[in-house]
């Protein structure tokens, strides 16, 4: 048996039970394990609900199909945003926070009862929000801009969810204190935990911004406040809405480092550089609310320039650093593993059959090339007017949140299920395929929506043929083509998403048990991978010709696309 009771270590509270993981040697505490399981399961459930809504949205926006009637379309679109952008992502992030603290540091989880309270509040909020949306009188879109008003249950449900999430974040901070106090590790926390701390700090800012705007809006919906200023709402709401995506960035970059460590044994190139990049996120990523204010009245240009650029692009610089150090760490490790021929043998001989690795690497590439570059373009003060509120915007954030974050979280799940649920992945052949289906679909969604957006197609719009409008307008034929291709890519992504949910649910319920002696993983970890993820320490010597080539291509693409957009802008009507 591998379940070993170590009893209490320097702790006099209720009995704390640990087991030792047979694959990683990690010490895993029972309540941490149960809470990670609960949050991960809830995450997958809301991914299934929200993903289904997403498919309905894409099939309605495919002009030749136009599946749902208008009322249902706007309702389902509201539900899609809440379920995937908020519930799937934040439940999974809470699981990641518990993993990065309790499991990686080998500590017990602080105040498991509060962690359960957090979980219950989040479930209550998420269920209540779905109820409010499906009832039909809260079709206000995920952003709920006033003066359009939802039913008060809608705002209350988001507040309850946010309070729960905030408690979860503080359980994470408490666990860090416990681990330090009980000396379960020595020196500084590992890089992955450091990244999780970054995510948690941003989460506190985010959830506070959400409370500051949602509580008055809730009181307004109850009639206690007469009006909500529309500009102020937008500014503060996006302090939650955009910053919550920065939690994702910090979390999924931590996951990139973790998977690279566990699957190919990668160490950070240098601890100092990677941690410095995370620090830049803490300092500057919160300014992103400005990205939603560039086409609004009432903001000065200097305010826009400072904020939209995250203070001279220091947070963009941080992402570019991770864009070098993550593939660089993989290349250095693979060369150490013996794949030294040519520029790219380290990459071609990488474990592409392991869904954790393939998902992680596609997430890295697509987050950089699709989500990252387009984010900078959209966030440039003058260029924003070309694309503001067109479907280019959903194109951009499906590149970050779906192809980036969601794919990384899926990849991580292929490691979490065997290690934390102690069940192996059922049907490995299908699992190998899953990240490619979902990744290619998600990449397609992003690119085709951006293509349609450059042709002016509006976001959140039921009928671009404008059939019922008094004054007709005909979009270019290319726009219809792009929306059709978007629908097809959505079917591909939904197939990959469904496969993911089925694989994970089946594995958790009926996967081969891994708690017996001599059990083997379908997708093995790298020897010493577990050690790498919890170790500090930089690669001493390395050569990275492949990574240098990759980042050179990235930089060239970035610069080229940046100037192409300025060229488009200069052809616009004159603003003087």
């Amino acid at each position, binding site marked *: 048996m591998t379940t070993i009771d170590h009893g209490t270590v320097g702790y006099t509270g209720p009995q704390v039970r640990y087991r030792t993981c047979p694959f990683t*040697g990690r*010490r895993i505490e029972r309540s941490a394990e149960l809470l990670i399981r609960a949050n991960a399961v809830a995450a997958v459930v809301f991914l299934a609900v929200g993903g289904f809504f997403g498919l309905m949205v894409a099939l309605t926006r495919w002009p030749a199909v136009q599946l749902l009637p208008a009322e249902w379309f706007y309702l389902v679109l509201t539900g899609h945003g809440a379920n995937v952008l908020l519930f799937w992502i934040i439940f999974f992030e809470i699981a990641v926070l518990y993993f990065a603290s309790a499991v*990686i540091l080998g500590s017990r989880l602080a105040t498991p009862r509060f962690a359960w309270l957090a979980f219950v509040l989040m479930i209550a909020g998420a269920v209540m929000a779905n109820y409010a949306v499906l009832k039909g009188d809260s079709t206000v*879109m995920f952003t709920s*801009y006033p*003066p*359009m008003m939802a039913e008060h249950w809608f705002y209350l449900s988001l507040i309850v969810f946010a309070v729960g999430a905030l408690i979860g974040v503080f359980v994470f901070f408490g666990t860090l204190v416990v681990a330090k106090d009980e000396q379960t*590790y*020595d*020196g*500084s926390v*590992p890089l992955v935990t450091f990244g999780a701390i970054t995510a948690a700090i941003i989460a506190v800012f985010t959830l506070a911004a959400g409370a500051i705007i949602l509580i008055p809006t809730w009181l307004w919906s109850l009639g206690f406040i007469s009006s909500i200023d529309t*500009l102020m709402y937008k500014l503060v709401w996006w302090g939650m809405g955009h910053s919550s995506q920065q939690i994702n960035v910090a979390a999924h970059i931590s996951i990139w480092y973790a998977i690279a460590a566990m699957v190919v044994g990668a160490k950070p190139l240098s601890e*100092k*550089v990677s941690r410095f990049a995370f620090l830049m996120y803490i300092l500057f990523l919160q300014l992103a609310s400005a990205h939603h204010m*560039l*086409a*609004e*009245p*009432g903001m000065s240009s200097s305010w826009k320039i400072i904020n939209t*650029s995250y203070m*001279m*692009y220091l947070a*963009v*610089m941080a992402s570019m*650093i991770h864009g070098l150090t993550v593939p660089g760490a993989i290349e250095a490790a693979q060369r150490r593993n013996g794949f030294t021929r040519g520029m790219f043998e380290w990459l071609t001989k990488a474990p592409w059959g392991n869904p954790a690795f393939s998902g992680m690497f596609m997430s890295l590439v697509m987050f950089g090339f699709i989500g990252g570059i387009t984010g*900078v373009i959209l966030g*440039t*003060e*003058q260029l924003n*007017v070309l694309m*503001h*509120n*067109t479907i280019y915007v959903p194109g951009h954030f499906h590149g970050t949140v779906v192809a980036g974050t969601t794919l990384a979280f899926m990849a991580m799940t292929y490691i979490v299920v065997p290690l934390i649920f102690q069940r192996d992945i059922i049907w490995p052949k299908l699992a190998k395929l899953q990240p490619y289906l979902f990744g290619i679909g998600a990449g397609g969604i992003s690119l085709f929506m951006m293509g349609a957006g450059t*042709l*002016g197609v*509006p976001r*959140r*719009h039921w009928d671009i043929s*404008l059939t019922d*409008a*008094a*004054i*007709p*307008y005909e979009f*270019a034929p290319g726009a219809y083509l792009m929306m059709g291709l978007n629908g097809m890519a959505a079917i591909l992504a939904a197939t990959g998403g469904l496969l993911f949910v089925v694989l994970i649910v089946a594995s958790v319920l009926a996967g081969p048990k891994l708690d017996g002696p001599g059990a083997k993983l379908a997708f093995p970890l790298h020897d010493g991978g577990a*050690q790498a993820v919890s170790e*500090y*320490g*930089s690669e001493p010597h390395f050569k990275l010709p492949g990574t*240098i080539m990759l980042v050179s291509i990235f*930089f060239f693409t970035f610069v080229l696309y940046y100037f192409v957009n*300025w060229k488009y*802008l*200069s052809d*616009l*009507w*004159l*603003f*003087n």
Partner: protein
Amino acid sequence: MSINPPSNRLWWKEPIHGIELAWIIIAFLWGVFMFFFMIAWHFIGDQNLSTETYRVNPDKFVEQVEEFANEYQVLDASGAPMDIAGTLLVRPPVGGDVYILGRLWEWWPALELKKDQSYRFHLSSADWQHGFSLQPVNINISVHPGYEHILTLTPTQTGDFGIVCNEFCGIGHHTMTGIIRVVE
């Protein structure tokens, strides 16, 4: 068992590798360039969105727009007001003030402008937030009730240009359109 001790406790004292340092410098300089390019465009570019904004009472704004439309509406030979698809057509004086009202669910009125002449646009909403999206030019500006946004626009092409709404404004959102006609 506990976690492995760090291989180098003083990780912050390690030297930075040359590759990483070079990339950091490139990324930093590119960021500085992009930052100053936004500022530079205010001097070298012709597409800088005006920030001139006033608080306005939505009802008052609707009155202003109606006054403007009455004054400059286009009359046909028989003296009857002309329209485009049922929307009153207005021909404001060159270089003058132009009002566009976003409301559930139309952009009102229809405008006839002259190419290469500048106009002072007044944009606001009578009710909810709307998204002014001029097509196929692709100029996209948010419109808030209670805020009057004033910007100068000079059309550089002739033809009929559609205005669609790209901010969700309720169940008729996808029927909200308008038109700007630009003539020589």
